[in-house]
């Protein structure tokens, strides 16, 4: 016990001993403080190093232009800073069934670990097998001690040869998907270290971003070059491929290349009647049918098509193309091969489109052109294929037309005629002839005229409709020409005298496209008002094919113009579909018996029977009958006998100019 104030002063020995104890305590405290500080410093150093490594890898991931560059640089940094002897990358295969070394590796001591690197840099591991295969399967990192002696390690012999003590493998994840596996090895035996595992996992997250960015980039490029609806290459990619293929071939070898252009038939009808969603479904189905059919064709070795390569594309709307490459053989054989391809495509569309496009029937018109030395550019080749397609389309549905020199000539002629026709309309080179229509009674008096258009061609002279109407119709110029005919005929008719108070009627041919125009009835009314012709004297002649395009429209127009007294006539009856049901529905006033039936009459045979039947039919429905093409008195007598009311033909009068017809009327 210490008694302050009364205690003996401590001896020197005691004080010394006390000082020594204090020194030892101080010393112990210093050592402890140093240990604590050392631990802190070490931890700080290590986390700084890790942070630097991660920063470095993040930088690499951001800067790298390619996945390989990012992986290579990251691997090097990890090996160097974390003291791994070997780093190796394995990529997941496209079908996701295996991982495979992609020849991206690093080794601090390359010669010493050559055996292991050689076994690893190209090795393939099925999913679940070996260290990389397991990491691919589980998506989790794995640490392996003494790989040379692990039954789970496929490359154990090489690991022993290279004296590897520790290995580990990490997944690189893009989203939830393993896209690559990184593996590292070192000679030292190091127990699994959660800190190292965490760093490597962080690094692989950064590398995963490189994969995601690459995917996004590729998706963008894919989107820019593909049609989103069908997934087929779009016009840009098709043009690129065509250009590339075209440039690769010398002009003499260019016939190895061909282009097919497909334009859907009946697609507009699907869109109009079933809606755009149905239209889209048809386009998707077409894309798939084309791809499947072409793949099948490519897989038919030993046939004429052996070795041919196809690339389908959707150019836009309902237009598809197929680029055909490596076509063998010469002219005829090539056309044969492509016709066979087109036939296969038609069949594929038939088989695949039924259910999606019903009740509309969708098919395709196909035109194609084969490359030649004449083609100076891909545009010319494409243009030829387009022209062939239009030709196919013009001929009806589901046809195939290959571009030939002869077709080129025909089309050029047609183009020239179209130009001349346009100029002719502008220069008023047309005039009307009028052919009299007479009563088939004893008087045979002229009761009307049919207006017939003539073209005073500046070079070829006077041309009849057969020489230019088809081109006028296909070019759309018929709208101007038809309008002019309608107005001119009405104007002329208005000027005719009316002997005995009974002015003749005027029969005017109306083209299909003219009639189909939405404002047709209004246009007729306008012309009637402008020309002052009595509407009851006008008879508009429609062919059966014009009338049945849209029966509802036809009925509506006929009924509208009938309100003002304009009559309608069904032209060329018997040459088209001659559908009794449509005849019944359409309220025509007049029925014209085609000249072919009149010419076939002989007084007692089948020809007479047909005319008799038509007359009976018309009478039943209450239509007036006009027989065309009467050239002989005998024909006239027979028609009178059958009860025909009106007739026209050379027997009664040839078509003549308006000035002459006026004289005829006054006679």
């Amino acid at each position, binding site marked *: 016990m210490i008694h302050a104030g009364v205690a003996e002063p401590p001896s020197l020995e005691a004080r010394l001993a006390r000082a020594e104890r204090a020194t030892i305590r101080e010393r112990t405290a*210093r050592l402890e403080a140093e240990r604590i500080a050392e631990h802190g*410093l070490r931890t700080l*150093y290590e986390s700084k190093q890790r942070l630097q490594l991660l920063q470095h890898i993040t930088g690499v991931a951001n800067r790298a232009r390619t996945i390989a560059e990012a992986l290579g640089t990251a691997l090097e940094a990890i090996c160097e800073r974390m*003291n791994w002897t070997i780093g190796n990358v394995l990529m997941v295969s496209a079908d996701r069934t295996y991982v495979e070394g992609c020849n991206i590796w690093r080794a601090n001591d390359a010669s010493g670990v050559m055996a292991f690197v050689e076994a690893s840099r190209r090795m393939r591991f099925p999913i679940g097998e070996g260290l990389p295969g397991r990491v691919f399967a589980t998506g989790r990192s794995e640490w392996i001690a003494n790989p040379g002696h692990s039954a789970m390690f496929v490359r154990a012999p090489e690991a022993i040869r290279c004296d590897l003590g520790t290995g580990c493998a990490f997944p690189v994840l893009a989203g939830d998907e393993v896209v690559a596996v990184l593996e590292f090895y070192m000679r030292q035996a190091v127990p699994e270290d959660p800190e190292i595992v965490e760093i490597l996992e962080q690094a692989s997250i950064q590398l995963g971003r490189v994969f995601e960015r690459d995917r996004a980039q590729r998706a963008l490029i894919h989107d820019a070059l593909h049609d989103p609806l069908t997934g087929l290459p779009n016009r840009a990619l098709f043009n690129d491929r065509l250009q590339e293929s075209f440039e690769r071939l010398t002009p003499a070898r260019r016939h190895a290349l061909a282009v097919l252009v497909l334009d859907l038939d009946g697609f507009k009808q699907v869109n109009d009647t079933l809606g755009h969603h149905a239209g889209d479904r048809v386009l998707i189905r077409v894309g798939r049918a084309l791809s499947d059919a072409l793949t099948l064709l490519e897989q038919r070795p030993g046939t004429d098509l052996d070795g041919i390569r196809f690339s389908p594309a959707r150019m836009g709307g309902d237009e598809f193309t197929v680029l055909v490459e490596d076509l063998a053989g010469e002219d005829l054989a090539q056309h044969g091969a492509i016709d066979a391809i087109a036939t296969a495509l038609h069949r594929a569309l038939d088989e695949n489109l039924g259910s999606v496009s019903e009740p509309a029937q969708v098919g395709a018109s196909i035109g194609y052109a084969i490359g030649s030395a004449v083609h100076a550019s891909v545009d010319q080749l494409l243009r030829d294929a387009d022209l062939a397609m239009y030709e196919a389309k013009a001929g009806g549905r589901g046809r195939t037309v290959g571009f030939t020199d002869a077709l080129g000539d025909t089309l050029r002629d047609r183009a020239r005629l179209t130009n001349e026709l346009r100029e002719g309309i502008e220069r008023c080179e047309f005039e009307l002839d009028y052919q009299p229509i007479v009563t088939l009674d004893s008087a045979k008096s002229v009761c009307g005229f049919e207006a017939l258009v003539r073209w005073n061609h500046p070079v070829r002279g006077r041309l009849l409709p057969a020489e230019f109407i088809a081109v006028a119709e296909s070019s759309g110029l018929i709208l101007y020409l038809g309008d002019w005919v309608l107005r001119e005929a009405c104007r002329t008719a208005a000027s005719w005298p009316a002997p005995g108070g009974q002015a003749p009627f005027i029969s005017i041919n109306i083209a299909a496209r003219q009639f189909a125009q939405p404002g047709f009835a209004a246009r007729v009314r306008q012309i009637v008002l402008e020309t002052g012709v009595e509407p009851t004297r006008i008879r508009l002649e429609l062919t059966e094919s014009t009338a049945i395009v849209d029966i509802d429209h036809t009925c509506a127009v006929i009924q509208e113009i009938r309100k003002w007294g304009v009559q309608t006539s069904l032209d060329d009856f018997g040459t088209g579909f001659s559908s009794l049901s449509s005849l019944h529905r359409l309220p025509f006033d007049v029925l014209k018996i085609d000249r072919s039936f009149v010419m076939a009459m002989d007084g007692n045979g089948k020809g007479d029977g047909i005319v008799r039947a038509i007359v009976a039919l018309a009478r039943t429905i209450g239509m007036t009958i006009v027989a065309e093409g009467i050239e002989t008195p005998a024909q006239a007598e027979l028609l009178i006998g059958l009860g025909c009311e009106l007739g026209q033909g050379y027997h009664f009068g040839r078509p003549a100019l308006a000035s002459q017809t006026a004289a005829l009327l006054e006679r």
Partner: protein
Amino acid sequence: MKGVIFNLLEEAVVLEHGPDTWTDLIDATGVDGAFTSLGSYPDETLLALVDTAAAATGKTPSDVLRWFGAAAMPLLAERYGVFFTGHSGARSFILSVNEIIHPEVRKLYSGAGCPHFQFSTDAEGAMIIGYQSPRRLCALAEGFILGAAAHYGEQVTITHLACMLDGSPLCRIRVRWVE
């Protein structure tokens, strides 16, 4: 020079000659004498302490350094046992200096100027160590080697094939293991 070297020297001196000797040595050298392992102190301080000890014992400074190196090894094994385990002998321990021990030293003592050794093997299987440092502490290295051998119960003979102290640009130290 890192304080830990001074601490080791102090421990070695105290162990061999008693606690007073260290204070005497500090006083005789005329240096401050407060060293913490994490601090850095002038190289000259260590060399001055070695010179004083040499003068007091009648040995050369190299002898003192050699003694210090050998005596420090058990102390290091006590402080940093992890570097000694995992080696079957002194050869593999010595070979790990560049790759493992010095990197670890740098973690603790930021800015520590650790020497880099070149290792090779001669025709007779002896280890040849190349050393170059402005501090010219090859004798300390020799001492460490002797101490390491002793730690693993081995015996080595060390010869200097070339020495910076003799004007050579670098030291080449041959270590032969006595079977």
